[in-house]
């Protein structure tokens, strides 16, 4: 008789925790004191529960816990997709650079630019990325902060607010640049106007791109880029409007596609928001702002570290302009960036596997063995550091090999640059700088995952300062291209500080995993 009660209780509770759990479960199954007496010979349900609990304990001891099955194929697919997502930015980069090499123009660049034109446009690009960096990171953070729990109405509102802050930053930058130019008379009205147009359009494009990235609409970004470049070609070849107008229209088309696409996705998500989550209210602005600030700072400092050496290189020596674009320098750095793409793509995989590992190990280790648990995660980082190093070496080998080939091939419109000594030197320094930068970001990934964005900012900001100091000093003392040494020095500082912060964090990763959420 009691057999079926034991089975029922075991099924309902997958092992009761005490007599009260058994009593409650029996009562919920309609067992009364009367039944306990008449059918089971006990005083009441609680007396019956004591007996059933004892039988359940014996049962539990006898039943081994089955291991969950592992779906290897599904996992491999999942990890590959993560890797591809991680490498996605390369698709965008490749489209632009490929178009420049093959057709001679991209969405915002042209090999036919004069030195002055390239300088103004280049400066506009750097400034727009730098000033929209905080908003781009902010979009990613607040977007997922609200979207992940399904609060799409709030996500939309918050994202619009962050985009507006990005627009304000752009506006402030434009006013600042105009005042400077008025004061110093560097570029003159016409060139300043051209620069500001590029600056504003590329700034907008980077904001709409951040929106799509947050919404995981990668296809849309490719479509927008291809369409944008296509339109540049169309206007350039089919009209007499010239390169500026072609770029502006191409950028406009890209922005329009991205913005429309993002608006449609947001609209669809808002419409699908559950009735319950429609009631969600916005947290107080200062509370939310405090959460977003470190991500914004990271966005600014990240682009700062990426670009500060260029500012130093472009402004070294007298060329009549305060900033002069230097093609060999740019090509050297861009080529070095391509070399680290395979390693950068890996970071998405690291983030994914780290989150998974955290959860699995947390269930596997008893708290008494927490030190071992934490060491296991330190080992995880070491292993992934190894993968990153291998991918860096592989990427560098392939990129360097390709460089050698191109040097002799004369296949593209920019082949002449590939044999340039300065370009090669910058490439070598860029390779070292970007590799160190990847180490820094690699460690930051752990800190971000564990909700420690300030630790990342504290590692990155000194790196930016050092990069600026070294880049400006070297480029003034030696040749302009030695500014790339700033990237190396700054990235080294970032990598060291981030590694140290991550080591400290992982040593007590159990605590940080708790405190992050």
């Amino acid at each position, binding site marked *: 008789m009691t057999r079926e009660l034991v089975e029922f209780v075991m099924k309902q509770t997958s092992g009761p925790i005490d007599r009260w*759990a058994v*009593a409650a*479960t029996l009562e919920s199954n309609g067992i009364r004191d*009367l039944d306990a007496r008449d059918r089971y010979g006990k005083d009441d349900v609680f007396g019956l529960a004591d007996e059933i609990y004892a039988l359940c304990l014996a049962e539990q001891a006898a039943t081994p816990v089955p291991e969950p099955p592992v779906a290897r194929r599904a996992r491999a697919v999942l990890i590959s997709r993560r890797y591809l997502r991680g490498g996605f930015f390369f698709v965008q980069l490749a489209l632009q650079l490929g178009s420049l090499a093959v057709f001679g123009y991209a969405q915002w660049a042209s090999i036919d630019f004069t030195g002055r034109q390239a300088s103004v446009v280049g400066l506009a690009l750097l400034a727009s990325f730098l000033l929209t960096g905080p908003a781009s990171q902010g979009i990613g953070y607040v977007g997922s902060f609200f979207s992940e729990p399904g609060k799409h109405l709030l996500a939309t509102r918050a994202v619009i607010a962050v985009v507006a802050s990005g627009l304000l930053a752009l506006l402030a930058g434009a006013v600042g640049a105009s005042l400077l130019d008025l004061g110093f008379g560097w570029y003159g009205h016409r060139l300043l106007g051209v620069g500001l147009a590029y600056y504003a359009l590329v700034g907008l494009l980077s904001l709409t791109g951040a929106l799509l990235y947050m919404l995981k609409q990668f296809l849309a970004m490719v479509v927008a880029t291809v369409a944008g470049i296509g339109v540049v070609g169309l206007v350039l070849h089919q009209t007499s409007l010239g390169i500026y107008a072609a770029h502006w229209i191409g950028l406009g088309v890209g922005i329009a596609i991205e913005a429309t696409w993002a608006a449609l996705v947001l609209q669809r998500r808002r419409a699908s928001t559950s009735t319950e989550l429609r*009631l969600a209210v916005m947290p107080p602005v200062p509370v939310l702002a405090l959460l977003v600030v470190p991500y914004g700072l990271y966005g600014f400092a990240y682009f700062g570290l990426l670009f500060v050496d260029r500012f130093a290189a472009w402004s070294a020596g007298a060329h009549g302009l305060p900033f002069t674009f230097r093609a060999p320098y740019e090509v050297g750095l861009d080529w070095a960036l391509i070399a680290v793409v395979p390693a950068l793509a890996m970071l998405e995989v690291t983030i994914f596997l780290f989150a998974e590992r955290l*959860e699995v190990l947390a*269930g596997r280790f008893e708290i008494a063995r927490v030190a071992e*648990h934490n060491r296991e995660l330190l080992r995880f980082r070491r292993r992934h550091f190894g993968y990153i190093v291998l991918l860096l070496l592989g990427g560098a080998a392939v990129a360097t090999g390709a460089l050698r080939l191109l040097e002799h091939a004369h296949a593209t419109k920019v082949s002449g640059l590939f044999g340039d000594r300065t370009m090669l030197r910058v490439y070598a320094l860029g390779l070292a700088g970007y590799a160190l930068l990847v180490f820094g970001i690699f460690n930051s990934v752990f800190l971000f995952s564990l909700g420690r964005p300030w630790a990342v900012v504290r590692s990155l900001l000194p790196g930016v300062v050092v990069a600026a100091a070294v880049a400006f000093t070297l480029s003034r003392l030696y040749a302009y291209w030695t500014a790339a040494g700033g990237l190396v020095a700054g990235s080294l500082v970032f990598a060291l500080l981030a590694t140290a912060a991550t080591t400290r964090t992982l040593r*007590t990763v159990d605590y940080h995993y708790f405190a992050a959420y």
Partner: protein
Amino acid sequence: MEFTLYAITGTPEVSYKFEPPPNARRVVHVPLFGTIDPAEYLLRDLPFDELRRRRAATTEDEVETVFVPLLERLLEGLAVTGPEIRDYGVVVYDLWRWFEHHDWRRTWTSRSVYAAFTRREAARAPNAQPSVGDINIALHWLSAFLLPLAVPVPRTDLVHSTIAGFAALPGIVAKHRDGTPFLVTEHGVYVRERYISVSAAPFSPYAKRFLMALTSFVARLVYAHADLVAPVVRFNRRWEIPYGVPAAKIRPIYNGVDPGVFVPKAKPEATAGGPVAVAAARIFPLKDIETMIRSAAVARELLPEIKYLVYGSLDADKPYVETCRALIAELRLEQTFELRGFHSKPAELYTEGDVCVLSSISEAFPYTVLESMSCARPVVGTDVGGVKEALEGFGRVVRPRDPEALGRAVVELMADDEFRRELGRRCREEVLAKYRTSNSVNAYRDAYLELTGRRVAA
């Protein structure tokens, strides 16, 4: 009489089912989950300066020297089951006072709290060590369930909690600060209901044990501080007494219905032709609709023209609805047993039938019984919770999960028209005498007046 209401919910995204009456001065909404920091929602009206001040005050040193000893006392209390539990009320009060001036999230995520919690929990059960993940989830639960301690407690003449759970924590605070009288109502027994749902949840054994230890601790603490425990049904005593409530402190206050809304009427034309049993029940397992269906098969054997009409949402557990439909088909009861879904006018549904059926395997004090009685329709119900308390002498009570007994009892009542009508009349009189909404409200008012010393107990 004015009220400040504390609404404890799972997440912040909820709306009112009923608008609060004008004498509810304020509603303090405390969502236990759904935010990372209470500053996002619960404390959203706190001036930012105050928030900053609290954050600055919450240093690791201060947490270690003041908060951690309180936390350790609290965790020690989780193992206490005797009357000395009352001594832990002051811990709850001190925790509340801490959070008057300190930041909630910064406190709970401090290293000292994590270390103290880990130490304590590892020592609790050396043979059943929690995992790293267990500690993580348990400390999160602790900080979430204690959230009612993050909000101000107004000075009032009385605290009335409708549950012996976390929502009652402000009552303990008020008792220690101002000696405020404390009344606790219980519908289902909180600790019992949590046992059922936590046991069935996919948590680790440690996590279940911790959550139930915390839940039981709070229930015992609430009982120990209550001046009067007023369950809606006597049946609840069987859990309340072993959890520390002296029998003398328990005084049931039954639910009531509005006899002006649930009025006796003749059956409408559509169902006037033959014997009809109605039921008002959401279609889900605790209502044991399967037994009701089988009882219909038993009843049809004896009374072939009988019909069962079941009103109640079909959305609560869709797979279960399918199981019920399959059973109806299997027993060829399509002409006898109808799942009619939600009824827009509950006051009308009982009078569509001659008797009302309740087949639940677990209940507290079901409204459907009182509503049916108010409509002068006798009830055949299962002997669960307080059903017998209402039905003894006014209907038929049968063993749960016994379709034979349920079906026969239904037929028995159907067979004797005169007796059934007489029983219906007595049901109506019983409701008018004992189960009016006003009886219930007056009983609470009397309890308020008595506990606040404005009237001596009768």
